[in-house]
């Protein structure tokens, strides 16, 4: 049964937007701190009563302010993993996990759950203070899952453990996910973590849900400049959308990049959503950039046929293991700095100051409005 959340409030903090999460799907709420991720999670758990909201799992609603419905947290059956675990310090691991359970089988079920997350029988008898951070985290996950919740909520669960433990816990979560057939919502400020664990991202800023979608889809086509910033798109530039005219190839319009004599007019995909004359941000994903042959300093080829080649100078080259991060500066035309990841056969020795030819696949260029509009309430899938 999928989780559907729609919220719109102004007090005590702004919180607006909607998103959905299918059974077995893991959605990550990402955004800078103060974006309202945790507040949204608390509203789902029933720890916060929103002004206007509808929170439903399948046909059962937990909160529907239009109907005056608010189910208290006790009756929601959510599994919540707190940021600092919130384990009961006066109970051992086993009693902590048995806390949500009733009946004679409770200790047996708690023991079974703890075994699944990898705690030894001896560790189960220890209190939280006598367990390592990673073990505490496992206990917290076990407590959230032991009641077979209708929704699993994870509030920055990996922020308090070190890098080594984090990798093991990622693996644990991935393994547990196989058996969890309920919607899962993860709050994180770590984009890499979100991309690694989540099926979809929900990008938030200033309390507003800006976009929901698969990580690669958001990277290819961020809804607006704010989303592009939050998901950390390196190659983002400003321009002016001129729209289509008689000379533009079918399905495309003109993007003016740069100003004055140095301005380039690029034919890019026109989705008809932006008014001509409007200032826009545009992005090009890593797949749309490559190094091509014949460096010709001083010449800009604003070619048709979906390609643009620009002479560019190496600024820096950083070796990140199998991947090299190359920064390039375009000197002619609009002054812009690009960032490319080189892998496999593309790897070659390069020195700062060296001239290269940068080819941009214009069919992969995505344009978007600069201001964050109020259209943020619609979720883009």
């Amino acid at each position, binding site marked *: 049964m999928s989780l559907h959340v729609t919220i719109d409030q102004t007090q005590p903090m702004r919180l607006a937007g909607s998103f959905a999460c299918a059974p077995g799907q893991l959605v990550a709420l990402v955004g800078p701190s103060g974006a309202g991720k945790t507040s949204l999670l608390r509203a789902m758990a029933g720890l916060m009563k929103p002004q206007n909201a509808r929170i439903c799992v399948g046909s059962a609603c937990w909160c529907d302010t239009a109907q005056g419905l608010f189910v208290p947290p006790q*009756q929601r059956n959510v599994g919540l993993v707190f940021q*600092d675990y919130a384990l*009961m310090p*006066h109970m051992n691991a086993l009693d902590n996990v048995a806390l*949500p359970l009733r009946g004679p089988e409770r200790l047996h079920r708690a023991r079974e759950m703890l075994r699944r997350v990898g705690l030894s029988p001896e560790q189960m008898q220890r209190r939280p203070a006598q367990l390592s951070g990673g073990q505490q985290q496992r206990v917290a996950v076990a407590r959230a899952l032991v009641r077979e919740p209708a929704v699993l909520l994870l509030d920055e669960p990996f922020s308090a453990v070190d890098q080594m433990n984090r990798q093991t816990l990622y693996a644990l979560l991935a393994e547990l996910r196989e058996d969890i057939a309920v919607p899962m919502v993860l709050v994180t400020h770590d984009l890499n973590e979100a991309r690694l664990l989540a099926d979809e991202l929900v990008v938030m800023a200033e309390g507003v849900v800006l976009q929901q979608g698969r990580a690669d889809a958001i990277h290819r086509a961020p809804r607006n400049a704010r989303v592009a910033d939050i998901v950390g798109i390196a190659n983002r530039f400003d321009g002016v959308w001129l729209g289509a005219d008689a000379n533009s190839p079918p399905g495309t319009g003109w993007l003016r990049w740069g100003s004055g004599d140095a301005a380039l007019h690029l034919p890019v995909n026109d989705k008809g959503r932006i008014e001509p004359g409007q200032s826009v941000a545009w992005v090009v994903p890593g797949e749309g950039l490559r190094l091509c042959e014949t460096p010709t300093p001083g010449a800009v080829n604003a070619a048709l046929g979906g390609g643009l080649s620009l002479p560019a100078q190496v600024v820096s080259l950083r070796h990140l293991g199998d991947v090299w991060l190359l920064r390039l500066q375009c000197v002619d035309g609009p002054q812009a700095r690009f960032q490319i990841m080189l892998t496999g056969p593309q790897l070659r020795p390069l020195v700062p100051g060296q001239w290269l030819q940068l080819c941009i696949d214009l069919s992969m260029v995505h344009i978007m409005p600069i201001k964050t509009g109020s259209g943020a309430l619609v979720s883009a899938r």
Partner: protein
Amino acid sequence: MDWQALTLSLKLAFATLLILLPSGLWLARWLARTRSRARTWIEAAVVLPLVLPPTVLGYYLLVSLGGQSPIGRWASDTLGVGLTFNFLGLLIASVVFNIPFMVQPIQRSFEAIPHNLIEASVVSGLSTWATFWRVELPLAWPGVLSALVLTFVHTLGEFGVVLMMGGNIPGETRTIAIAIYDRVQAFDLSGANRMSLLLLVFSVLAIVVSLVASGRFAPASRTRQRP
């Protein structure tokens, strides 16, 4: 040793605990959780018996509960009991002057419970009542224990308020603290000495118990924890 006075004092101390523990727990938890504006005023009222001279407190209690007062008259007309110069009057006074000793340590320990533990309990499906018994009370227990001990010992030793409210009636209002004063007045220093020593021992024990409860006096093996 005035055994009658000691028995009376112990009876008074236990009766005070019986009344103050449930009401003090409730008030302390409310003060620790509430965001009401009345909180500051109620907290001030709770502390008042601590700063007021005992004779002043006793005087006001005497005046407001005595036979001439509306409350005193109502009690004698409808219930047929007097509220001063008897055990009941002593008990009322004892409850009032012990409010800060009961409420404050419990309130501090409720305040020290991280709020996310309460939330974790609620999300785990525990009712407010179950959360209180299984999470809040066990975690606040050191404060509760220390409040019980303080109140108990304080009741045994209270002098000023008791004298004002109860006088010095053997078997009815003569507590051990009054008996000590009595012995000294009668130049029976060895009698006063024995009873004073007993109260001293009680007081030292109380301090030890409340330190152990708050974890500041714990043996080394208990404070050391596995990394």
